[in-house]
């Protein structure tokens, strides 16, 4: 069932009322916004490779790319407020050997220019990196026009494009470097708020290989992007209650690291997926279809944005409203166990 204020019943909520909730920021060192890391990384890469081009649709400010434009003026192409053209031009540039990053708010990039992504980039196999900035509900208070809760669903159904949603600064930096070396289309999206630096079992990053943030064997949180941090927070809350939670950063939705998902699901009693996306067509449904095909029948919950007009508010308020928080996710896990 989709979660909504009406049908979200946290039966075990009372148990947690008095639990001390450790805020992520007090435990983990706060990093920068993934958006800033993207910009810094791209400047570094661009200085060493003049074939790296950034294409913007009046989005250099919101993409933190003003410094890139100032330092590498010959490597930024402005197309104006024209997202279809943004992607078509990016594909044309890429066909000549340029390493192109097409940057626009995810809400426009993945809807307005969807046909250009499908045909000019993915079908034509042009190595364009599409950067969806201020993704999900980063522009929370601006309303549904500026939310991007469909992007994973639509891109999952398009052949020949990787989907990457980094959780923190480490993953963002590595995703951008990997994209600059890739020969195929990639979509990377992130938000604009500061993210904590997450721990991880292995200090490595590979597109298509999930990162284990924390090991556990009672419940597995399989999360992506900016929802990994609240999943980690939930794991800590659960630990105080004697429940061992695993946290996986599923930074690549396509190709999906099936092995990592199955490994977590097999050893845990329940699985919770978490995403800043519609509960339809995203990470949760990708996992659920995998579980059915592999005959893994365990308590399972998809946490995301339900199919309703999204509540208004800041990103954190929207997250809290839909249970994408340490408290909400720990309650969801308790309900499943």
């Amino acid at each position: 069932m989709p979660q909504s204020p009406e049908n979200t019943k946290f039966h075990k909520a009372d148990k947690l009322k008095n639990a001390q909730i450790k805020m992520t920021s007090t435990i983990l060192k706060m990093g920068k916004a993934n958006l800033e890391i993207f910009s810094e990384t791209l400047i570094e890469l661009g200085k060493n490779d003049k074939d790296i081009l950034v294409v913007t649709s009046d989005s250099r400010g919101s993409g933190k790319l003003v410094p890139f434009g100032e330092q590498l003026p010959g490597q930024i192409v402005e197309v104006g407020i024209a997202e279809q053209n943004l992607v078509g031009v990016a594909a044309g540039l890429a066909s000549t050997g340029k390493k192109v990053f097409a940057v626009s708010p995810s809400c426009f990039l993945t809807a307005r220019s969807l046909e250009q992504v499908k045909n000019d980039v993915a079908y034509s196999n042009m190595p364009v990196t599409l950067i969806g900035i201020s993704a999900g509900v980063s522009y929370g208070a601006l309303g549904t026009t500026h939310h991007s809760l469909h992007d994973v669903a639509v891109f999952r159904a398009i052949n020949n494009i990787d989907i990457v949603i980094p959780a923190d600064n480490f993953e963002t930096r590595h995703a951008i470097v990997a994209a600059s070396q890739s020969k195929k289309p990639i979509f990377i999206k992130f938000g604009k708020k500061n993210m904590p630096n997450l721990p991880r079992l292995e200090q490595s990053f590979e597109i298509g290989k999930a990162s284990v943030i924390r090991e556990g064997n009672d419940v597995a949180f399989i999360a992506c992007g900016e929802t990994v941090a609240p999943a980690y927070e939930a794991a800590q809350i659960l630990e105080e209650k004697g429940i061992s939670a695993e946290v996986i950063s599923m930074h690549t939705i396509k190709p999906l690291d099936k092995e990592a998902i199955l490994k977590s699901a097999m050893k845990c009693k329940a699985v919770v997926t978490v995403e800043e996306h519609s509960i339809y067509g995203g990470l949760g449904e990708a996992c659920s279809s995998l579980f059915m095909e592999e005959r893994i029948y365990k308590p399972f919950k998809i946490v995301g944005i339900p199919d309703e007009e999204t509540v208004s508010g800041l990103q954190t308020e929207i997250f809290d409203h839909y249970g994408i928080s340490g408290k909400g996710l720990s309650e969801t896990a308790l309900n499943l166990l």
Partner: protein
Amino acid sequence: METTISSHFRIFFKFFSMNNLTIKELEQKSVKYRMALLKYIKMANAGHTGGSLSCTDILNVLYNDVMNVSPENFNDPNRDRYIQSKGHSVEALYVVLADQGFFPETELETMCRYKSPYVGHPTRKVNGIEFNTGALGHGLSISAGIALAAKKDKAPYRVFTLLGDGELAEGSNWEAAMLAAHYKLDNLVAILDHNTLQITGRNAEVCNPEPINEKWKAFGWNVVHVDGHNIAELSKVLDEAPTVPGKPTFVIARTTKGKGVSFMEDVKKWHHGVPTNEQYEIAINELGAEQIRLKN
């Protein structure tokens, strides 16, 4: 400045080209192409007949007389580029590419069949094709991107794209038109296959694109008019284009949908009509008669 360097490069290329064909030889090629594309449309029992016959002369002149592109230099970064924005007229492109030696013409016998790379719109699976097109309103943005890359690299090549007149209703064209003028892409030539018909009927009745000339001028383009079936005129105009430094060129090629087959000319049902056996025979006979006339 770049235009001058580019023009010298082209004159140099043409001077040493062994393949310079006379106007008459090019006219004969057009008839041959029309016969071939009808043959493969008939075999496939599918295709965009009217539009392919409409743009045959334009493609003939581009590939045989104007562009520096061949199977031998197709991986050369300095080759001229052709992007077919009106991708549905792919049958004309296929027969021209086959004639250029990009692939054996007999392969077109598989057109539109199970697992054939020769699908109903251009794909890069076919040697000689630069981009997968077919959804309208994409070619100009792609071409502008390539032309922009040429400017950045100070490369001498030109970029040609072919648009349909019905296609002008796609808003993305106008996004690209603004950009091409803004970046002064005088290495970009957009050719309009202006046959005035689209699938529903006359452009003017569906959603009037006129005044086309004034619109492109207002968007900052150099606009040139040409008879899209006059080989000598096409050769001159396309070879010289772009003619104004600092501006992209828009060539309005006045054409006839279904050109070359009397009962198909300027009749909307031939947009994607496939001839019956009898109609096919009449069409081939008409084109055969034209072939004989040109030989004499």
